[in-house]
């Protein structure tokens, strides 16, 4: 079920009022039932995978928490991780590895399994894995209530595309009974509205241009390829952060506080800062459960660089089973390592230059450099094949001539739509600081109006396929 569909609004209109009239246990049962309905709307059979994860990690957590020796705890953890990653590997990576092994001549033929990629499998696998790891590390006590645990795994606002919530944050909230609170309705409702504007008005209006160029990059001029890449950078930001806003907003209306997932990533002046601002729930997951588990920065400089690279390579592979994502992660990992190397041995340029104006100029230049670096990685992320990515980079770097979309009237409309979106967000930011209720209401009306008037044909969320 898409957040930007009428069916979801009907679903929400039924679930939310029921939620508030029920006692805590009833709410938990309702949320599990509603979440399974939400998931089964996509595919009924595949909801069994969710059931599997719930029973597996609930049992594993219980076993780890009550195991008498560290060795037995470890066995519990390894079993849980193997099963979680095994399911993920089967559905997501089997085809990729099989085809590559075949290309390398290691195996002769690839039997096809004909499996669909379960919606949001990467998200809920990581969420449940963090639970068992936290229990193993002694960060949290194992959950003793299966219903609460089922709600933690399947909670519909964040089930298919995050934010990846930690058990230590979400489970205590599930135990609470939040009343229907005005503050939650207003703050959550506003965040949902912001999310819809980002998704329907901004991301979905950018999508056709990006699809056009990335569909056949060889036909388009270097300028069009470059603009399409900038557009994709913003499309994916609006799409994913819009989804996160809607998810966080829905949860907030019910009283839950989710992790902030985006924090103006394109104003970052380093790649490290970018990862503190982009998909925060994933980057902090990778840091806490992968980078630190690999040794982090505690095992010497060389090992730190290797750990950074490995973490980001696996982070790339988390997004999808293709070499494009591996390269995407590899580029981010290499830049993180390079940044670390440079900033350890030298003062940063901003620190070395005196004067506020000069520092602002340098900051702006660094920001532009990081944005362009990230855009380069987006080429690999978005292109259908590695060949397409290389063609697009060639078109841009050699400034090849070719078709362009700048003369199309719809292009001006797209620019106007973006401008309206920017005005909306500028206004809402301003209005947040003004305690005048009427202004807040007016911008909310504006939000509804621009969704109706400028919203594009609904498209799936990009991160649904991960």
């Amino acid at each position, binding site marked *: 079920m898409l957040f930007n*569909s*009428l*069916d979801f609004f*009907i679903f929400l209109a039924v679930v939310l009022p029921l939620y508030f009239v029920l006692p805590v246990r009833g709410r938990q049962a309702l949320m599990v039932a509603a979440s399974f309905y939400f998931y089964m709307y996509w595919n009924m059979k595949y909801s069994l995978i969710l059931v599997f994860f719930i029973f597996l990690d609930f049992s594993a957590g219980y076993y780890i928490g009550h195991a008498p020796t560290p060795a037995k705890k470890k066995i519990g953890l390894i079993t849980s991780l193997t099963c979680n990653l095994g399911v993920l590997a089967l559905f997501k990576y089997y085809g990729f590895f099989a085809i590559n092994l075949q290309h390398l001549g290691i195996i002769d033929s690839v039997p096809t399994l004909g499996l669909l990629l379960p919606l949001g499998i990467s998200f809920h696998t990581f969420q449940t894995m963090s639970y068992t790891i936290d229990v193993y590390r002694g960060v949290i006590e194992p959950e003793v209530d299966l219903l609460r645990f089922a709600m933690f795994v399947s909670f519909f606002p964040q089930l298919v595309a995050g934010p990846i919530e*930690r058990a230590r*944050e979400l489970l*205590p*909230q599930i135990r609470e009974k*939040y*009343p*229907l*609170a*005005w*503050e*939650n*309705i207003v703050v959550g409702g506003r965040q949902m509205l912001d999310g819809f504007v980002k998704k329907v008005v901004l991301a979905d209006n950018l999508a056709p241009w990006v699809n056009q160029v990335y569909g056949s990059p060889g*036909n388009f001029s270097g300028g069009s390829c470059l603009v399409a890449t900038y557009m994709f950078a913003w499309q994916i930001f609006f799409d994913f952060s819009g989804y996160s806003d809607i998810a966080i907003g829905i949860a907030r209306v019910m*009283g*839950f*506080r989710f*992790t*902030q997932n985006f924090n103006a990533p394109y104003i970052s002046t380093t790649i*490290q800062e970018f*990862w*503190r601002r982009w998909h*925060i729930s994933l*980057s*902090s997951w*990778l*840091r806490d459960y992968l*980078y*630190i588990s690999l040794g*982090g*920065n505690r095992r010497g400089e060389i090992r730190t660089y290797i750990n*950074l690279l490995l*973490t*980001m390579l696996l982070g790339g592979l988390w997004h999808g089973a293709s070499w494009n994502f591996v390269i995407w992660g590899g580029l981010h990992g290499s830049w*993180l390592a390079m940044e670390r190397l440079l900033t350890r041995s030298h003062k940063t340029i901003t620190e070395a230059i005196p004067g506020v104006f000069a520092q602002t100029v340098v900051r702006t230049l660094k920001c532009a450099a990081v944005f362009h670096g990230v855009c380069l990685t987006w080429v690999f992320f978005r292109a259908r094949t590695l060949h397409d990515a290389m063609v697009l980079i060639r078109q841009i770097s050699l400034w090849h001539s070719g*078709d362009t979309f700048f*003369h199309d*009237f*719809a292009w*001006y*409309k797209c620019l*106007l739509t973006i401008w309206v979106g920017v005005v909306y967000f500028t206004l809402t930011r301003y209005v947040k600081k003004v305690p005048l*209720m009427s202004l807040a*209401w007016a911008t*909310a*009306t504006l939000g*509804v*109006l621009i969704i*109706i*008037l*400028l919203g594009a*044909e*609904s498209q799936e969320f990009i991160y649904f396929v991960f």
Partner: protein
Amino acid sequence: MSSSTALSPRPGLVQRPEPVPRAYWISLALWIAFTATIVTIVGVLLRLATDKYDFSEPKLRESMAFTGKHLDVAFFGDSLTLEGVNPDVVDRKLNIESYNFALGGASILESEMQLRYFLRHNPKPHLVALGVYLNVPNKPAGVRPTLYFGLPDDLRTVFRDELFSHESVKIDRSFKLFNSIPAYRYRNTIDLLLKSLLSHDDQRPSFVKGQARVSFSRDPLLGRKHESVFKADELESFMDFCEKERIPVLLFEPPNHPGYSELTVNRAEILEKVSRLAMKYPHARFVSFNGTFALGQAEWVNLNHLNIYGSATFSDLLSTALVSDFSSR
């Protein structure tokens, strides 16, 4: 990746917000009423603008109101026919009565639905002339709400099923709900208003016997090579229906600006397919007017639409293709 990254604080875990006071519910209700009013006002304004600027909506409403109308020729098609076929010229030349039912961006399926609806309330026309656009770019198919909502239930069901089978377009609850909001339904008029604002020419059409007439002309932009996604199965369905109703059909390809057709990489294949299809039916024929006569730049609106001058030239030529059907008059 930095180890200093921290999760955001969760004040909600320590705060217990108060339940909602009654006054807040009232202000929420007032906001909903205010927003609904604004959306309604915008909808009314857009509806008014649609009547002035839209190339299809006013004439679609006009044509759907026909009852007992006798027509010799009913022209169907998309914007090329809508702007290119002048029924006045045809009627004068052949001493007949015709009407241009074409709609901007109409699929052949939509034309079939228009014809089916027309036949419910009016006698059969002597001939149906369908303008076919062979260079169809790959765009998602649209459904015109005024046509869909105007159809009786049984035709709506046919339309819905055919649309799903030919275009994979689903008419669902979202379509029905959103299109019941005028601001949403007429929002495409914003494009026409913008175009009008950005242009020095008067972009508003006038309608005579269904033809949308404009008098301006702009330099064409040829665009890029593309593959046409002409829906031959929709055409076959249209032809089957006409055959069943025993109505003769003239399939015609309106002219395109020189150089434009060459951009369609699979044009020859489509042309062949349409010709073969026309030959399959005993009362049908296909004529292409593409590249068969010269038009001056002042006769084009843009790349492939004709203005009032070009349409007069083309309609005169089109009449000659109809002479044999009405030779006894």
